[in-house]
């Protein structure tokens, strides 16, 4: 495990920004952190970097205690903060030179190439740069660092679609080079595109872990019902979940392969059938939809609780 936390908690008086968070990130993995504002993503990252001291629990990066060895931790981690602010007196080139000088083993040439790839004008003073330009500059400085771990907190915010794609490509290149990436974002499609594993945080708690490879095998089947829905055969109950069931319509979700279900589905009185991958949105909405489904609304074929169902879907 290159990043590991155990029962990590950060409280501010009665407010818990992070509660009992235990996770482990494998070497070479792109690991996503998902959750709305205030869920605890940034708190978790800031504890990893030694900016915050945990109230209880511990965190380790590359075997180094994040609280006691924070400088050594930052030697192996390159961090891009959300909405990175740079030094306004410098121009883009000076800033990249500064970051190359301050981190032993950094490569100015690599950061200049990255800046070029991100279509950045380095001659401009940072004080006169737009938010997006500053973000590109911070990205070039961060991704140029030759560290085994990158922590990217909302790396694509303020970027145009072309540059967003370039950033995602850079993350994929980092993975191909054997680097580990912690990728925090609100943009589900991006997380879905680059991450190997995702954790969802809610109100400071880690509520779900999703292996993306497993998610890609899951499907949602929505259809109109022309007759009452017959009971699900006993043999299929572990493989099919009724996500919603209203008069005249039904939505199933498959935690695993779709093929074994097709025979039974074909016997149902269904019309206007739509089959689509479940996607991260559905998983995310289980924990963060504005009007979360009450447990009674969610008919589970085998009677499992939402928590167990979440576990079934890969956690």
């Amino acid at each position, binding site marked *: 495990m290159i990043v590991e936390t155990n029962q990590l908690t950060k409280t501010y008086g009665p407010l818990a920004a992070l509660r009992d968070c235990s996770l482990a990130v494998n070497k070479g993995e792109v690991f996503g952190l998902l959750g709305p504002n205030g869920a605890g993503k*940034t708190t978790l990252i*800031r504890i990893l*970097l030694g*900016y*915050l*001291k945990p109230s209880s629990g511990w965190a380790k990066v590359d075997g180094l205690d994040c609280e006691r060895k924070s*400088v*050594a931790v*930052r*030697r192996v*981690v*390159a*961090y*891009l*903060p959300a*909405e*990175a*602010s*740079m*030094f*306004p*007196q*410098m121009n883009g080139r*000076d800033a990249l030179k*500064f*970051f190359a*000088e*301050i*981190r*032993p083993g950094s490569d100015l040439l690599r950061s200049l190439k990255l800046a070029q790839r991100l279509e950045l004008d380095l001659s401009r003073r940072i004080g006169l740069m737009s938010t997006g330009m500053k973000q590109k500059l*911070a990205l070039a*400085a*961060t991704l140029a660092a030759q560290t085994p771990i990158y922590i990217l907190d909302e790396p694509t915010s303020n970027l145009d679609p072309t540059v967003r794609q370039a950033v995602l490509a850079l993350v994929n290149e980092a993975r191909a080079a054997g680097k580990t990436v912690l990728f925090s974002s609100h943009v589900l499609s991006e997380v879905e595109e680059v991450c190997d594993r995702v954790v969802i945080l809610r109100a400071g708690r880690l509520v779900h872990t999703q292996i993306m490879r497993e998610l890609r095998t899951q499907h949602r089947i929505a259809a109109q019902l022309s007759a009452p829905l017959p009971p699900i055969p006993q043999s299929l109950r572990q493989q099919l979940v009724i996500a919603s069931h209203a008069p005249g319509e039904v939505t199933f979700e498959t935690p695993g392969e779709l093929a074994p279900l097709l025979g039974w589905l074909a016997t149902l009185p269904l019309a206007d059938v739509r089959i689509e991958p479940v996607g991260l949105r559905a998983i995310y909405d289980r924990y963060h939809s504005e009007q979360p489904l009450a447990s009674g609304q969610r008919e589970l074929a085998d009677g499992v609780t939402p928590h167990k169902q979440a576990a079934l879907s890969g956690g």
Partner: protein
Amino acid sequence: MNVALLKKSLLEVRLLFAACLVLVFAFCFVRVFIVASLELSDFAAIVERLWDKWGKFSAVPLSQLLSYPGRIALAFDEPIVVFTISIFAISRGSDVVSGELNRGTLELLLAQPVSRLQVLASQALVTIGCLALLSAATWCGTWVGIQVATVKESVPPPKLKVPFLPAVPLPVRSDEKIEIPMREKVDPAVFWPGAVNLFCLGCAVAGVSSLVSACDRYRWRTIGIVAAFYVLSMICKILGLAFERFAWLKDLSLFTAYEPQKFIAIATRTPEDTWSFVRQVEGLPELGPLGYNAILLGIAAIGYLAAAIVFHKRDLPAPL
């Protein structure tokens, strides 16, 4: 010490430093010309009238104030000089932590493999170095002024020379004026204690500002707190000097240890005490110039040390 951090601090400070440097140099240079242009007798006429009420606020006796070194030494108590050094110190000290936090730049800075202590030390080193240069600039401005200014003085009365007897000045007043170079009247070296005292004041203000900055996250609030402390400190000294029953307030003031005129007077009158920690005055021990400077440097050291401890231990809030 991290060279990249030092370079960054120098880059940030260069404009403010250049402006302050030009200001204090030019002011001290011009101040010598103002002294030279106002005849001693005219100045004495003004001061002697006010001395009964103003005297208690003066750190030096009237005789010192009516000498050329005493009049030039007033420059070190001029608001332009004191405030320029103080503003520079507050500006740099407040930037150490709360300034970087306020701008959001500390986030990316501390993402690099540097310790918080290194960040603080690089800022402190540049601030103290610049304060030393600014204080030296006040002396340089004074030195250049002394080298080029001339004073007008009445021609001394003719003397009657009688063989085998000392020369006797004749009681004849002459209206004739002659120009004498200021350098013949004043030794520039006597102003070093004033410049050093100014440097120590700057360090103390920078240390206090750094401590407040290390505790805070908003630079404007840091500046407000330090400015309030600074003004209160001035008020304490003024009240302590003005009213006997409030004399104890002087002990609470930072400015009680800032007495450049007094130290210049010591350098002029008792050169052997110029760099003394303790000196004898009428048989009693009294803090010497270095003693006062040690108090200011002690405040600076405590300020920076406490700032380092607070900064090392505190949680860093997310950028605003």
